[in-house]
């Protein structure tokens, strides 16, 4: 052990440029810290840009709604409502006829005989539908007038905006060159109302005719049909009783009644119609999309929750080590399947399979089978459920595995078997972990785009819940789907464009809330496990 006491000359004291060194270290730290802030910044930017692009929506939508009233479209829509309710009644009649025919076919009656028996009813139905002819005439005349007025008002508003923009940017001469035509809105509206003056006479005439018709309504052979027919008659009477109210509404309607500012928000949040690029009137109501997203998610979770939790329990408690080593990576592997491939698989295979199944004779007893659309809530829900399984599985398995061994051992020591231990100790102990797994699965499902875009059928309508469970087999559109589908085609800055950003904002808020809830639960779960 020689040489220890040698002189120490090896390392020079760390004097030179020490300050520079310190500055470099600080700089590196600041650089990393800056990167860590990116997450915060991005989150903030997402919020800002969704707001920035989306917020103008309310103003634009408000003027859209105001124009609807000022141009008299609202007025026409009152009459149109009366007419379309008449049409609905007409449709009901043909439904009654259809069930009548079915009932007769069950008795093996030949077709000619059925038709002969229903001939009076058919005459009644056609007479009924004829009663609205005048009404339809009024509607189509007024529609033309109102849309023309709307066009003019819209064009004028555009020109005005153009001019004020030019003025603001200082090009006063150019601004003056823009000729803004004067529109005699009052006159146009008066014409509109004149055109509808005979609404009252028409409706009175129709009422009289219908009462006569109802009085001589033919009886129906099938008792069930007869019952439906009686119900229809009551509805028709109610309809007729409501006609004076419509006239009253028309009389009191004023094109200049103010539309409060909050109507723009409420018509977005609670509006039941999403109609865009229409010649008549655009509506931006999020409800059909929201309902679509929610229904698809419910179906998805209906499949994913039991499957995900069951497989988590199986893998963490029951499976042999060998199985475990295979199953866990395989399920994780599933999570890597690109959603667009699943969507394509849905179109190519699942949709067909669902429709084929609904047509099979085994399932004939289900009232809403066979279904007509192969792409519907159910198809999309199945695939999304499949997608959510890995998320739920991984997190739930984690939660189960992290239950302290002591809990389990204590339970076994008391003589409980494995099932009792799982059901009474493990699952309750990890419950908040499992619930948060489900929530995160829900977050994934609600935010998923490609599968719903490809497989949910993309019909913007609230499903018909009168069919009960059958509603699940109807096509819908979803929040994610509508953004993906329409974003590429809208005019930048238009109301429609901003409405899509607002939908994105709603989606963002929903997923943040779900995420927040899940994190809260996980935190509580950590605490309770200790």
């Amino acid at each position: 052990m020689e040489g220890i006491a040698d002189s120490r000359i090896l390392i020079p004291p760390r004097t030179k440029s020490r300050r520079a060194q310190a500055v470099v270290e600080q700089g590196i730290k600041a650089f990393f810290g800056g990167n860590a802030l990116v997450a915060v910044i991005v989150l903030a930017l997402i919020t800002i840009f969704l707001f920035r692009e989306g917020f103008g929506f309310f103003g634009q939508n408000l003027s859209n709604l105001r124009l609807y009233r000022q141009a008299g479209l609202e007025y026409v829509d009152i009459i149109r409502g009366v007419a379309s309710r008449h049409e609905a009644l007409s449709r009901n009649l043909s439904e009654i006829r259809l069930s009548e025919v079915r009932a007769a076919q069950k008795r093996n009656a030949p077709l000619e005989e059925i038709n002969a028996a229903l001939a009076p009813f058919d005459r009644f139905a056609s007479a009924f539908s004829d009663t609205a002819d005048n009404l339809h005439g009024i509607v189509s005349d007024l529609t033309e007038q109102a849309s023309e007025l709307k066009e003019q008002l819209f064009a004028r508003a555009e020109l005005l905006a153009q001019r004020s923009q030019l003025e603001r940017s200082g090009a006063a001469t150019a601004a003056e060159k823009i000729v803004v035509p004067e529109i005699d809105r009052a006159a146009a509206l008066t014409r509109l109302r004149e055109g509808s003056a005979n609404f009252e006479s028409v409706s009175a005439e129709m009422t009289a005719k219908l009462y006569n018709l109802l009085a001589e309504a033919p009886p129906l052979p099938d008792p069930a049909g007869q019952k439906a027919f009686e119900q229809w008659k009551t509805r028709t009477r109610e309809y007729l009783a409501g006609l004076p109210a419509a006239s009253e509404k028309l009389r009191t309607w004023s094109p200049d009644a103010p539309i409060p500012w909050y109507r723009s928000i409420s018509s977005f949040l609670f509006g039941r119609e999403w109609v865009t690029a229409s010649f008549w009137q655009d509506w931006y109501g999020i409800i059909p999309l929201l309902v679509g997203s929610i229904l698809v998610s419910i179906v998805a979770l209906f499949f994913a929750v039991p499957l995900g939790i069951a497989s988590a329990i199986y893998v963490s408690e029951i499976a042999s080590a060998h199985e475990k080593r295979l199953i866990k990576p395989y399920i994780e592997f599933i999570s890597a399947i690109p959603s667009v491939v699943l969507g394509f698989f849905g179109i190519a295979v699942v949709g067909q399979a669902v429709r084929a199944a609904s047509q099979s004779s085994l399932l004939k007893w289900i009232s809403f089978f066979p279904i007509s659309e192969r792409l519907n809530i159910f198809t999309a829900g199945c695939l999304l459920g499949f997608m959510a399984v890995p998320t739920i599985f991984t997190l739930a398995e984690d939660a189960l595995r992290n239950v302290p061994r002591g809990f389990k051992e204590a339970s076994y020591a008391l003589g409980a078997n494995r099932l009792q231990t799982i059901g009474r100790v493990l699952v309750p102990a990890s419950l908040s972990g499992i619930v948060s797994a489900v929530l995160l699965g829900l977050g994934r499902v609600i935010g998923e785009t490609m599968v719903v875009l490809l497989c949910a059928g993309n019909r913007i309508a609230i499903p018909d819940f009168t069919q009960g469970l059958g509603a699940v087999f109807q096509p819908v559109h979803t929040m994610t789907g509508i953004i993906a589908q329409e974003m590429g085609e809208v005019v930048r800055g238009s109301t429609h464009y901003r409405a899509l950003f607002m939908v994105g904002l709603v989606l963002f808020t929903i997923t943040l809330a779900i995420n927040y809830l899940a994190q809260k639960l996980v935190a509580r779960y950590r605490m309770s496990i200790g």
Partner: protein
Amino acid sequence: MVATLEMPETTSPTIVNQPEQVPKAEIERAMIEIEQLDFAYGAHQVLHGVNLNIPARAVTAFIGPSGCGKTTLLRCLNRMNDLIDSARITQGAIRIEGVDINAPGVDVVDLRRRVGMVFQKSNPFPKSIYDNVAYGLRIAGITKRSLIDEAVEKSLRSAALWEEVKDRLHVSGYGLSGGQQQRLCIARALAVEPEIVLMDEPCSALDPIATAKVEELIRQLKEQYTIVIVTHNMQQAGRCSDHTAFFYLGRLIEFDQTAKIFSNPAQRQTEEYITGRFG
């Protein structure tokens, strides 16, 4: 300590503010002065009013029951506790060669280079033996191969490891036995030629032969280095230290010449601990 530390010619052996119940040792030159040190992890206070002067070029042993704060105090000496979020010195000061090491402009990196440390749990880097020892030199900016080679050999010899590893300098340090790993860590600490070496139970994983080697090493090192060693082995403390400090529940109970502590301790607690009646 922005400027380099200079060896003071003489240091007065006065011990400041020493509580009466702690007898003071006769110290010619204090290298490290610990003054009224209170230390806490969060709300949990671990050291209470420690006053201690550690002599230069001598071996000072810290003894005491597990959890009494020996490691904590040792880590205060090269500010290793900076790494622990909740840890902080709540009162008092530590001076090395008269300079307060916790003063604002002190360069921690330089401090740590001058105050080397061997950890309680051996922690070789997952690199080759050679790279382990050369690490500190390279960090310090030495690139000349021959210098490094020389220093590596010297340090490994000092740590009594050279003969065992000289043929496999370039295999991973992880491939060594526990005792060899600990000596590798000692060699690594020596390679950068610190002025003070802090050793936290350096022999806890070693067999008697290796322990003897390390003890011999410590005796040699004190010619040149100031050494502080934490040990649970009374014989070891007796064999190789010059001074011994006995800690109990975060307080310094007694500090004196090792011979005195082991033959005639002033405090009953010290005696009980040394004779094995508690702890």
